[in-house]
């Protein structure tokens, strides 16, 4: 690959300070996203995936602190930026589509205002230009521009999510992070939104970091998939290959937990136990207490993420 990746995250480490020992939520996570690529980030709640997303844009508040690693966007070193640089960088280079649209929209401003204010904050639009751009954005996501002066509470859940996507597209950023954009919606609307996202991506060509706990969503949408468990990356590889031939026991467990509508009937396997308490993570491989294939080595020695076959990475002693 001669072209430099859009986003490069190396060995990112995020901790939460407590009165006692700090809790490590993200422990040495590395990945990169190329231009036009869709990287799916999968994991259970508590795996650290949302933390990664917000850490990349440095949105987390104390007691969360970034204690190690690198985040590079093109030539920019995000972790070294000051307030002003960050403010210029945010939304223009990377934008964020949040989970629950009702909660991320300001209830007292019209949706038009919430689109135009980000345009005005970054560009210097001429009179009326911001509003025109907002109107065309709403058309782009499939909401009539007549809704410019509506308030968030006047829209349905699906429409609100589209508004959030429209806002995210306002400055045509090269990378969009989508943190569980469909989780709060019902299944039918989910489908519509995903379809919309795919369409927009094809049209505009931006990269996506798609975060979800639902692996099945990722298969259709992503180029590559990365799986996170307890703050660490346990597997990464091209989407289709990972789906057909998962290497890590956790990924196997995740895939086995979803019923498929087609294909032969399979027993749902699921994963016994629950995610670990990050204040006191298990020794060695963090997954070993729940792993059906665990051996003695797994409890004492931490497996490193390594390339098993070409472009397939996994952190497991048994791969």
């Amino acid at each position, binding site marked *: 690959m001669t072209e430099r990746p859009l986003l490069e995250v190396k060995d990112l480490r995020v901790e939460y300070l407590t009165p006692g020992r700090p809790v490590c939520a993200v422990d040495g996570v590395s990945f990169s996203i190329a231009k036009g690529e869709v990287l799916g980030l999968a994991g259970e709640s508590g795996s650290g995936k949302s933390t990664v997303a*917000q850490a990349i*844009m440095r*949105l987390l508040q104390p007691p969360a602190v970034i204690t190690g690693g690198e985040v590079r966007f093109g030539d920019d070193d995000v972790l070294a930026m000051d307030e002003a640089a*960050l*403010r*210029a*960088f*945010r*939304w*223009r280079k990377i*934008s*964020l589509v*949040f989970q*629950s649209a009702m*909660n*991320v*929209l*300001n*209830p*007292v*401003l019209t949706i038009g205002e919430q689109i135009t*204010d*980000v345009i005005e*904050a*970054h560009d210097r639009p001429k009179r009326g230009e911001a509003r025109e751009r907002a109107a065309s954005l709403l058309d782009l996501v499939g909401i009539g521009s007549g809704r410019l002066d509506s*308030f968030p*509470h*006047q829209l349905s859940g699906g429409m609100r999510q589209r508004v959030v996507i429209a*806002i995210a597209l306002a400055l045509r950023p090269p990378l969009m992070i989508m943190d569980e954009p469909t989780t709060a919606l019902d299944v039918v609307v989910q489908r519509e939104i995903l379809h919309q996202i795919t369409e927009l991506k094809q049209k505009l060509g931006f990269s996506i970091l798609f975060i979800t706990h639902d692996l099945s969503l990722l298969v259709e949408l992503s180029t590559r998939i990365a799986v996170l468990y307890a703050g660490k990356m346990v597997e990464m590889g091209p989407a289709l290959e990972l789906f057909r031939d998962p290497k890590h026991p956790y990924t196997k467990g995740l895939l086995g937990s979803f019923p498929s509508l087609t294909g032969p009937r399979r027993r749902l396997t699921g994963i016994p136990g629950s995610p670990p308490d990050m204040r006191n993570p298990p020794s060695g491989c963090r997954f070993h207490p729940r792993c059906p294939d665990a051996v003695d080595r797994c409890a004492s020695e931490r497996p490193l993420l390594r390339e098993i076959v070409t472009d397939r990475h996994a952190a497991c002693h048994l791969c």
Partner: protein
Amino acid sequence: MRYLLKHFGLYAVAAWASLTLNFLLPRLMPGDPASAMFGRFKGQLQPEALAALREAFGFTNEPLLAQYVKYVSHMLRGDLGVSVAYFPAKVTTVIGTGLMWTLFLTGFAVVISFALGMLLGVYAAWRRGGYLDSILPPVLVLLGAFPYFWLAMIGLYFLGFVLDWFPLRHAYDDSISPGANWAFISSVIEHLCLPSIVIVVATLGGWMLGMRNTMIGVLSEDYITMAQAKGLSQRRIMFNYAARNALLPNITGFGMALGFVLSGSLLTEIVFSYPGQGYLLVQAVRNQDYPLMQGLFLTITLAVLGANWLVDIVYVWLDPRTRGR
């Protein structure tokens, strides 16, 4: 709009309750209710005048309901009876003189206190752990623990009597005649300072803490995170995103506190002999001037209800969610 109508219904009921209470009170006392109210008039009134008074308050030998109807019709016509202390002035005339000054003083002081409190609260919450956040709230709360009128007395003593920075009494210099001239206006402003300072100091703590607390709650909301992610200026986030939302519960709180604040400011007026409703109230109590007392009760209650309704209108203007789909 339903929001406004619902509240208006409440105010109507409260107004009716006050009216009815005024009607019932003298009748609940043992003995002849008329003499309870007009005892002091003895010897001062011609029989016809006394009869007219009885008529106004419904003290006839008719059944209670008929009396009530008569009483209400008089009230609705604006006839609140005749004052004992300021005989033969009508109650409405007496109250009228004081109403303007009370509205002026209290309105002015309350608006300043609220605005200042909101601003301070916003900054205190924005810079958590800063000076504004850690020092000012406990100091203001301590100051607010003193009764208003005691603060008024201290203010009167130190700033007025000892330091002679401000005048000690009344709304304007007695030697100046009211009019649209600068001497009068400046005198009014001069006399306004001390009482309003007292009211502001006594109430500021409450508003500031209230706004600070709602701001802290709002700052943990997701739309603030999104606003940060959008790269908006701190100023825009602080005011258009955080403060505008945090303001809403405080507006409601403002309405509810109005009655309380007014009570305090009435007492402050007394200390400064400010010619408002408070002063009239004291006179009424001293002279057992029941008609005046009841008239004051009614007008003050109606004023508070009216102010509450205005606050409701402001709230509907500020919160689009109350306007319905």
